[in-house]
């Protein structure tokens, strides 16, 4: 079983829709949860970062972490064609460790059509 599971999609929605992207994980030691956005032919860029359980909001984006269920979500409100990208979840058990590394999901490809 992979440490992090993410449905690769693809997901196709109309402009203005609410998008829900999800990941599950198996390692209860994960404390740091991230969402990266990757446009075509580019490297991933950090979109949202959450420590432990709870919600975090940034504009149209909301990240949720439910550690009891080992489940994280990213919601995109009022989706735009510019949101079309691959979204990768990532997590780690340590941030300050010299051996800190990230565990990635496979990524979900999202297309928002006008």
């Amino acid at each position, binding site marked *: 079983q992979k440490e992090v599971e*993410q449905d*690769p999609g693809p997901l196709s929605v109309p402009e203005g829709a609410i998008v829900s992207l999800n990941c599950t994980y198996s390692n209860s030691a994960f404390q*740091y949860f*991230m969402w*990266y956005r990757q446009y075509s*032919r*580019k*490297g*991933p*860029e*950090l979109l949202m*970062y959450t420590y432990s359980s709870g919600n975090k909001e940034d504009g149209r984006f909301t990240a949720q972490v439910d550690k009891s269920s080992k489940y994280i979500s990213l919601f995109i409100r009022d989706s735009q064609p510019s949101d079309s990208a691959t979204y*990768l979840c*990532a997590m780690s058990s340590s*941030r*300050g*460790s*010299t*051996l*800190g*590394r*990230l565990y*990635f*999901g*496979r*990524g979900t490809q999202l297309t928002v059509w006008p």
Partner: protein
Amino acid sequence: DVKVTQSSRYLVKRTGEKVFLECVQDMDHENMFWYRQDPGLGLRLIYFSYDVKMKEKGDIPEGYSVSREKKERFSLILESASTNQTSMYLCASLSPNSDTEAFFGQGTRLTVV
């Protein structure tokens, strides 16, 4: 802004060639990583380094080696390129003392023919 720069965007190499992929970061980050990204498989960690001359195997190190002679530079070496190493290679850097997380380069699309 942190910059992670990979030396090439596109490379075409022949089977059996020795291939060097270079990555440079300008923010004095301690940790650097090499991933490959393939459709349906996501990002897979090849090697990482948390200090100069230090390296650790990731999940798929076979057929690869790395070099970190200076803090800002992390090189990935394909000792004898094979067609199954055709992939997108991504370098990342991370400061363990920062509020932000890993920064990625633009990627190198390597084709081995």
